[in-house]
């Protein structure tokens, strides 16, 4: 296998990463062929370090030697590079702005200071923390999910009939719900039933079912991380 990636499309990724999964889903929606390369995050490849020198993180999409970094940026790039099929953003400028807003919200909640309770971090707190801190984190997490559920409403997807950017931004985190529920004693089915139903609908799409890991495997990974961090 070539060390570099000057030909075709290469995705540098890590199997459990929800950020990487966003890119896989987008590529699958567009029916685009690419080479998937699993990175060892404890021993990052020279290619990864060269392709994303600023953040040194996956995912990175390398298109004929040119790297694109940051998952939502990659998804938009994929959408704009292959505009002739499966649009991931609506045509209407206002609807596009709305989609970008909600995708950005999934990514972060602006709050300077204290540090923003990001979706991923917010969820991570659920298994990393214990006691009161975990309860607080759980409350924050549920609030965020309810906000998103409010935006979804009774629509099929966040974009209405069209599966798109916001769905792609959020769906990978649903593979972590089982782990969060096991660690933090919460029930997403009870708290956000519409969102859970949306998750099931998304997973009926081949692009999603093929890209998302088995929630049980994610839980195994979380248990492994808990051992590494010395959390009981």
């Amino acid at each position, binding site marked *: 296998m070539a060390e570099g990636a000057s030909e075709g499309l290469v995705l540098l990724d890590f199997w459990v990463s929800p950020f990487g999964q966003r890119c896989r889903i987008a590529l699958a929606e567009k029916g685009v062929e690419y080479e998937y390369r699993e990175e060892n995050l404890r021993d990052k490849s020279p290619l990864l370090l060269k392709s994303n020198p*600023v953040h040194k993180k996956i995912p990175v999409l390398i*298109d004929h030697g*040119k790297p*694109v*970094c*940051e998952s939502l*940026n*990659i998804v*938009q*790039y994929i959408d*704009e*590079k292959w505009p002739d099929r499966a649009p991931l953003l609506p045509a209407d*400028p*206002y609807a*596009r*702005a709305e989609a*970008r*807003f909600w995708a*950005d*919200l999934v990514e972060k*909640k*602006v709050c*300077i*200071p204290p540090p923003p309770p990001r979706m991923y971090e917010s969820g991570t707190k659920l298994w990393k923390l214990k006691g009161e801190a975990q309860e607080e984190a759980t409350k924050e997490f549920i609030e965020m999910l309810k*906000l998103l559920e409010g935006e979804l409403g009774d629509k099929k997807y966040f974009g209405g009939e069209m599966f798109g950017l916001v769905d792609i931004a959020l769906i990978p985190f649903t593979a972590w719900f089982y782990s969060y529920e096991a660690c933090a004693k919460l029930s997403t089915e009870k708290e956000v039933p519409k969102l859970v139903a949306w998750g099931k609908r998304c997973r009926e799409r081949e692009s999603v079912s093929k890209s998302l890991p088995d929630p049980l495997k994610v839980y195994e990974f979380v248990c492994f991380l808990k051992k590494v961090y010395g959390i009981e």
Partner: protein
Amino acid sequence: MAAAEGGEVKLIGSWPSPFVLRARVALNLKGVEYEYLQEKPGPKSELLLRSNPVYKKIPVLLHHCKPVCESMIIVEYVDVVWAAATRAILPADPYERALHRFWAAYIDGKLFPSVVAIAKDEPKMAKVEAVEQLHTGIKLMEEAFERLSKGKGFFGGDAIGYLDIALGCFLGWFKVCEEVTGLKFLDEEKSPLLVGWAERFCSDEAVKDVMPENERLEEYTKLCRAFAAD
């Protein structure tokens, strides 16, 4: 004037905010007539809370009374809605667009928190880290400018583009940081390209009348710190 094409346009903002400045520069570049609604100090206006219930923050663009929030999302929206008005703000090529967006996200994620920590005169450790982060960031932006400008005057080439707006609107605040720390962040020696670019950006027609004056920003910073200390 381009306003007629779009219909009624309002911008809820606050003069010190670099994020509001981004929206204003984008609207000015497109020649859009808009009503500027300056938020008063104190409790947020009913209109702002209604228009941005999630973050309750400025800027908010109101177009036909429909709100658009988040500064760079507003910039992209303005670029598309008034596409016919003047040249595009975002480049046409998908890869170039990805680069502009990547660096804009970097500015918001890494440079902005550093600027805030320095301007607010955070405790020593945080400030030392922030200063280092800002130096690193500006070095990276200098390199990015060399690659993206391709020898021309702006990140966007011949004219102000997406990344020019993202970074340029922080120039006033970089100066405040220099005042607070006594250090140089944008200097002739380490970031000569950005120094030249900064002058071009600040003197551009779309920027010069809306960029807040330094003295005013410094006064404002002092006030904020005095208020925080009480």
